[in-house]
């Protein structure tokens, strides 16, 4: 049986201000009927461009320069625009990455669905029934009423489900999913994975899944296509590729994924170098500049696809000569030194904590609408943090983990005095910070610094890197500073090339901008650095760079870190202790590895066991919990997690649990913890 979708030698070019860029070069793969095929790649791999090429929805400056795309035997590239329109939505349909922006806000779901169904000759009532049935199928409660609602009335996870429903309305043969879980919380991701599996089994839809998330692909797909810089590196059956990755890039990708690494190591593997600017197609293998095994032939000649087994092939010269290409050492050995032990050289914990938080409560004004604009009337306050108790010791790294609405960012900002607390205490080395005026606080700012989530956005756009890096000195004016020397020193400390000092933020790459953020944080030699999502937006292969840098600096400068993140696998590798937050409360706090091995709080269990594992052999243990994170404006009664907890009992509904200490010293807020 021929594959439903066959792509052969696809070339796509974009006309940009810098000339022509060949975004896709010679891309070829098949999507067999009834299967789920995953296309994995990092930024710049061109994986999304493939989607737009298939549906012929490239931006105005892009065009398909060559190749063939056969769908059910027909060459899509030869169709007229009218025929393509018939194809879209009907034979192939897309689920979009960000449900917040990909659904028109001013039309109800009913209206949108009716529009999609315009080609069907049924009566309106039948179409409505069909829409309602589809919403029910994707798990939206009360679909006959909710179909009349507007997108902003659905939460994020539900919007994505609705997006899946709309894509399936015309019962397409091919469902294309573009990063379907990237914009969602971790617990939501697991739900969507289950949903997609269920739908595929019920409807026998063929799915093409595009993502950078290896775990997602491993959980769902039957086959995998690995792309790098616009070309296909390797493709094949998923178990075969994961078990015996043939291409160095695939090996590196798997090795670098923190969720894969079971033993905790302080240094994460990375792929050295950066994705290059590629206006012209390189003569040889496109991965050559970053490949640790590259030899002469790699630079001059493009590798052909070498078949390893049925359906599994890879483009690499190393596979050519017999014997070479089997049993290569994992890439990780070259980039860093993974060790099973925990971090080398961390100073022993002193008795008194550096930061001590007790019973901290923070309320912020909610969106009060227009009432709030009138002078004298303020918007209703929403509790963002409640009864937070936290200790951070000198030289340790504490990971603060939570999903949206957990309050983790607010906690970081409150410690830094950027947000006013309603009650409670935050002490820095025993000195109370709550209630200090800005003038009293300012001298202490040298002791605590923050690294922000958006690397470029957190740098003032019209200041040069040099002035940004020196700004802490301008504000606090420690005596006797040689500015140029200091700027150079800071740049060196974070591996930032000195010539970047004269550039502006918009001229930097994400990784470079992040290092500037680190340099700024280090400038005044603080005791504590709060890092807000340090790996957000970074490809897996370069995440390690930032984290390894932070670890090195910690040892060199005796730093303590508070790492705020929703990315559990990353946090696991760098943290000594962990604090899990839900709806503004800390529900579990203790030794990081112990918590991962055996979570005590049901929410922690859901988080830990809900991470998609990049290992196709481990699919069945993925756990997902029901429901969505409730809104902080409408908190559930009793234990706030009870609405989603699989172990909830009567007491949980009525009574808020206090903090209890378990045998191994960790703190839990639960009436019935999963261990003692």
């Amino acid at each position, binding site marked *: 049986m021929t594959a439903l979708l066959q792509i052969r030698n696809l070339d796509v070019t974009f006309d940009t201000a810098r000339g022509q860029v060949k975004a896709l070069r010679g891309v070829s793969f098949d999507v067999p009927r009834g299967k789920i095929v995953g296309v994995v790649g990092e930024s710049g791999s061109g994986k999304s461009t493939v989607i737009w090429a298939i549906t012929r929805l490239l931006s105005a400056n892009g065009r398909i320069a060559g190749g063939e795309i056969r769908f059910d035997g027909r060459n899509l590239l030869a169709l007229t625009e009218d025929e393509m329109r018939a194809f879209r939505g009907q034979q192939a349909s897309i689920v979009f990455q960000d449900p917040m922006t990909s659904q028109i806000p001013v039309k109800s779901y009913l209206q949108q669905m009716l529009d999609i169904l315009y080609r069907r000759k049924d009566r309106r009532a039948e179409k409505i029934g069909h829409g309602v049935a589809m919403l029910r199928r994707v798990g939206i409660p009360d679909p006959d009423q909710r179909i009349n609602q507007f997108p902003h009335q659905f939460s994020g996870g539900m919007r994505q489900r609705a997006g899946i429903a709309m894509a399936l309305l015309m019962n397409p043969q091919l469902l294309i999913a573009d990063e379907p879980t990237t914009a969602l919380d971790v617990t939501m991701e697991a739900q969507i994975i289950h949903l997609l599996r269920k739908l595929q089994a019920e409807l026998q839809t063929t799915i093409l899944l595009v993502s950078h998330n290896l775990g997602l692909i491993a959980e769902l797909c039957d086959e995998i296509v690995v792309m790098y810089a616009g070309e296909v590196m390797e493709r094949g059956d998923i178990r075969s590729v994961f078990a015996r990755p043939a291409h160095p890039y695939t090996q590196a990708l798997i090795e670098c994924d923190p969720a894969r690494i079971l033993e905790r190591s302080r240094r994460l593997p990375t792929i050295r170098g950066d994705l290059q600017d590629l206006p012209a197609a390189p003569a040889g293998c496109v991965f050559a500049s970053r490949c640790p095994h590259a030899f002469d032939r790699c630079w001059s000649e493009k590798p052909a696809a070498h078949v390893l087994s049925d359906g599994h092939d890879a483009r690499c010269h190393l596979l050519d000569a017999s014997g070479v290409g089997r049993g290569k050492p994992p890439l990780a050995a070259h980039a860093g030194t993974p060790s099973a032990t925990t971090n080398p050289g961390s100073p022993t914990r002193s008795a008194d904590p550096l930061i001590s938080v007790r019973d901290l409560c923070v309320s912020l004004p909610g969106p009060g609408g227009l009432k709030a604009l009138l002078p004298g009337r303020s918007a209703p306050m929403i509790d963002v943090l409640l009864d937070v108790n936290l200790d951070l010791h000198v030289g340790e790294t504490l990971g603060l983990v939570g999903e949206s609405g957990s309050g983790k960012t607010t906690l970081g900002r409150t410690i830094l005095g950027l947000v006013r607390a309603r009650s409670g205490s935050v002490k820095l080395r025993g000195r109370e910070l709550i209630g200090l005026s800005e003038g009293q606080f300012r001298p202490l700012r040298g002791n605590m610094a923050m690294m922000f989530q958006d690397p470029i*956005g957190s740098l003032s756009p019209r200041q040069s890197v040099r002035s940004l890096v020196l700004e802490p000195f301008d504000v606090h004016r420690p005596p006797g500073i040689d500015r140029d020397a200091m700027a150079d020193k800071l740049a060196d400390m974070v591996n930032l090339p000195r010539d970047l000092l004269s550039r502006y933020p918009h001229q930097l790459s994400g990784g470079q901008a992040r290092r500037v953020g680190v340099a700024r944080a280090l400038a005044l030699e603080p005791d504590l650095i709060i890092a807000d999502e340090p790996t957000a937006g970074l490809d897996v292969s370069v995440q390690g760079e930032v984290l390894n840098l932070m670890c090195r600096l910690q040892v060199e400068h005796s730093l303590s870190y508070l790492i705020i993140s929703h990315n559990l696998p990353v946090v696991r590798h760098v943290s000594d202790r962990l604090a899990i937050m839900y709806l503004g409360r800390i529900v579990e706090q203790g030794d990081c590895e112990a918590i991962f091995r055996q979570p005590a709080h049901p929410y922690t269990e859901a988080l830990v066991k809900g991470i998609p594992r990049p290992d196709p052999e481990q699919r069945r243990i993925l756990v997902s919990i029901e429901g969505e994170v409730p809104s902080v404006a409408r908190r559930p009664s009793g234990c706030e997690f009870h609405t989603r907890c699989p172990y909830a009992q009567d007491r949980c509904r009525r009574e808020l649990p206090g903090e209890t200490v378990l045998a191994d010293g960790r703190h839990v807020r639960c009436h019935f913890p999963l261990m003692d």
Partner: protein
Amino acid sequence: MSATRSDRPLVAASAPDRLGSEGWRRLRRIVGNWQGLTGLILVLLFFASALFAPVLAPYDPNALDIPARLSGPSWLHFAGTDQLGRDTFSRVLHGGRIALYVAAIGVSTSLAIGLLLGMLAGYGARWLDGLLLLLFDVIRSFPTIVIALAAVALLGPSLNLVLTIIIVTSIPSYARLVRTSTMALRNTEFIIAERSLGVGLGRILWRHILPNVVGPMFILAAMDVPVVVTVEAGLSFLGLGVLPPTASWGSILNEGYLLIRQTPWPIIAGGIPLILATLGFTFLGEALRDILDPRLGQRR
């Protein structure tokens, strides 16, 4: 998610740019765009003719020459004469000086005050913001001409009164623009980053907010000049602004209107420079806007 996950091919960071060369590139783009070029030429023409009017005008604008009254264009009088025999062309040139005076002082004053109030409203306390917004709304709720009429009813016509009214009614537009930009910037990560360093309010406003707010302000200023000039001309046309015998484009039009059945030339001559000046500044403003926001030209 951030831009690293788009479908557009990743392009590495650009080569370093000295800020000076960036300025030259911008200038060349203005000139390369035909709209900008035309606008620039017209604006320069306006400035030149207004500044050098005493030198360029063949006659004294107030010189009477009754025998030559109401004549059409000729080599002696390029634009003809009005009912008192004054040379229209010279009057028009001198009218440009009034326009320049009003434009320069009006725009710069309202820009400066608007900038200050806008930053205060955008960055300061909520009650202050509410109060200022209310103030702006009240000012905006009067059509300019109506305020002018009311004020003149009480105080009598005068150019400086008109100028004051123009300034007061222009401030809200600038202030709102600055306020919106400031409020947007206030919650961006980089401002929070600055606050986390302990940077004080003054420095934040001066070094971090102001430079990012100033760009759209200049576009607004360029687009505001035609409005200001037009308002002055309109009010002078109604007799509420300059007093006779001062020549302003508006007063020339006024006299021309009264003579409309006898000679069309004062109306034509008075209107053309007004149109050229407004077109010039509008084209220039449009060109500036295109340069600062080129993405409006692309689409799917």
